[in-house]
């Protein structure tokens, strides 16, 4: 297992390096670069160029072998949609001690993903394990598991796991069998039972996703929703792409959500940026239903030393509603 992990990481780095180089300077067949790297640069009569690889080593290549790549954008798009952003591993930390059910996260998520059904992607649960234990508010997103049960059972590879940690849905391929929904223990997936009705938002929407915009692009995998297919929290690749945090993180007035990169070992809630490993260690971070072996990318900090009273949140609690349609 350990060996295997190392191996895949090595392969991953290797590929990232190759692609990074190719897209930075363009040109040269990948195999050629590989042979160059292995051969430690055969010095030739012509000029050489010094290039820095993604991991910081300087390499020298023959400049005659460097040429511009014409369809660089296309190349990147194709690479990332199912592969993910190179050398990233996105994680989220949700601090239950801070949540008071303000529901700003949900409102922002609903609005920005044009959720028109009855079921929000992001939910804040009123939790109480036992009558003797304290109640608390628990926001849930898609857990973006490293062992995603939904991906395992998908018959057509419509839902997929990317190397940057995201689990996304290709809703141009989904056949609507809902097996993934049955497989997900976190009940995070929702179904478009009817044609999504965007109402007045439709114009804004169409402006954003013009006809030239490829559907299921890196930025908007699974958006806009389509009838008869499955939807869920997408970890906002359109925000990550712009180096911004997801909508829920941005909208939360209490700094409950932290978003970041596991490889960089940092997470931020906008106001403060913390060391992930330290945060999880100091505050006893855990993951939901760890025993199922799904390996979620979302960590929780237990609701201890709470900053807010649980009861305050009850004012906003709506048992039978999670999508406010008046926004449209």
């Amino acid at each position: 297992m350990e060996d295997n992990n190392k191996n895949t990481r090595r392969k991953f780095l290797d590929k990232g390096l190759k692609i990074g180089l190719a897209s930075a300077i363009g040109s040269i067949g990948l195999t050629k670069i590989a042979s160059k790297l292995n051969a430690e640069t055969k010095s030739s009569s012509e000029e050489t160029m010094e290039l820095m690889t993604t991991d910081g080593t300087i390499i020298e290549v023959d400049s005659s072998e460097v040429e511009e790549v014409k369809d660089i954008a296309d190349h990147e798009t194709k690479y990332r949609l199912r592969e993910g952003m190179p050398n990233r591993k996105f994680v989220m930390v949700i601090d239950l001690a801070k949540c008071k059910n303000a529901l700003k996260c949900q409102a922002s998520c609903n609005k920005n993903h044009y959720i028109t059904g009855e079921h929000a992607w992001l939910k804040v649960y009123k939790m109480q394990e036992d009558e003797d234990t304290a109640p608390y508010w628990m926001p849930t997103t898609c857990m973006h598991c490293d062992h995603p049960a939904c991906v395992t059972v998908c018959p057509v590879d419509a839902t997929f796991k990317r190397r940057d940690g995201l689990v996304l849905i290709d809703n141009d391929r989904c056949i609507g069998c809902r097996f993934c929904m049955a497989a997900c223990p976190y009940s995070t997936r929702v179904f478009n039972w009817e044609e999504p009705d965007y109402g007045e938002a439709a114009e804004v929407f169409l402006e954003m996703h013009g006809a030239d915009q490829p559907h299921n692009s890196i930025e908007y995998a699974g958006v806009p929703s389509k009838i008869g297919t499955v939807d869920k929290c997408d970890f906002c690749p359109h925000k990550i792409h712009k180096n911004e945090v997801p909508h829920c993180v941005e909208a939360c007035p209490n700094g409950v959500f932290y978003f970041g990169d596991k490889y960089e070992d940092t997470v931020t809630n906008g106001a403060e940026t913390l060391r992930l490993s330290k945060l999880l260690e100091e505050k006893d971070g855990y993951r939901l239903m760890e025993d199922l072996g799904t390996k979620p990318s979302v960590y929780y900090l237990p609701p201890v030393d709470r900053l807010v009273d649980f009861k305050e949140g009850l004012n906003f609690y709506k048992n039978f509603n999670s999508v406010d349609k008046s926004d449209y």
Partner: protein
Amino acid sequence: MEVSKKLVNDLAPQKFGKKGVIWTTFLVIVSIVGIIAYIDQVRKGQIVTNMNDYALWGIYISNFVFFVATSFVGAVTVAVLRLTKNTWRTPVVRIAEIISVAAIIMAGLTIMIDMGRPDRLMNLFIHGRMQSPIIWDVIIIPTYIAICLLLLYFPLLPDLAILKKHFSKINPKLSKWYGRLSLNWTGNARQTKIQLNSIQIIAILTIPAGFMLQTIDAWLFATLFRVGWDSTNMGGYFITGAAVAGIGALVAVVYVVRKAYKLENYITEFHFDKLGKFLALACLLYLYFNINEYLIPEFTSKKEEVTHMNLLITGQFAPLFWFVQVGGLIVPIVALFFKKGRKPLPMFFIGLLVVVGSWWKRFLIVTPTLLHPFLPVQGVPESWHHYFPSVHEWLITIATLAMALLIITALVRYLPVIPIKRTADEQELFETEKKSKS
């Protein structure tokens, strides 16, 4: 080896009387209504069903599981009884094969009704990936359809030749069709040898294929985390359950066909007695797996399991649960223990009870589990806390059942429901034995 005129006259397919025509028309109308409802569902989306993000599967899936289960009857009666050399099977095997064919074809169709995007059906073949249990189903169902058709067809060959001759004057057109389908059957030694070998191979193949089909169906649920499905008991549970549903359906259909075609001399009380014992055995086996499935979680009393069990035993599904367990299992077992219970008419009602119980049993396997996921059901409309099928779902589901009955009816109309050649051979054997004794 001439087959007697009387035998052919008795067993050859007959034109339907008034009742038969009314029955067929009724089935056609119900099927058409269902097709209209389905077209409406395709146009509007599955919003016309009462399914929701929690009860994400409904009676389309449980009905599918029911059809898959019923199709098992071919494997159990034909193959198992053949390999165990139970000669009493002769007059009922053809009907079992017909039920199998109808059920498995309808299973293949009903699963598509549940798809959110039936227009993307081809994606299963273009993008199919082996790790998904749905792809296992995509592979095994067509395989089983093929096996069931062959299992029906091979033993038919001599009968088709007989029918060709029989109808040559009465109905030349029909006779021509029988002739074509009989593949120039003459009954010579070489043909017979090939035929018997083929039947033997197909009969043996049916057993592993049938087991695989039922097991894959069980694994559609057992491979998921949900409480009530996450059980290692599921494979055997589904196989025995399928035997119950299949034999139950067989008993009911045999009774109706016997009555309609007046076959009392061929399908006798002796056969019902044997079928009754066979059904009782299947029910007992299924009861055993039921006890495993429900008693162990009740004993260990894990929190989630208790929620599930309470929903079944005392909660909103209690009336259905007890009807299925007592009406669909205990009552038939007790009734079948008595000789009087194994007479044709009581057997017919027991068969119906078992089939109805089996249908609702699948509903109880699918729905209650979905209504109590690991995280609480919150933030969705109140109606999403329950599930009961909508009018569209009922119309479509009833239509699929009608279509299955329509396939059975059509096959019963045009094929000899009791193997003619085999019956003749057995009668001859019986006569010679009698003569040699006297």
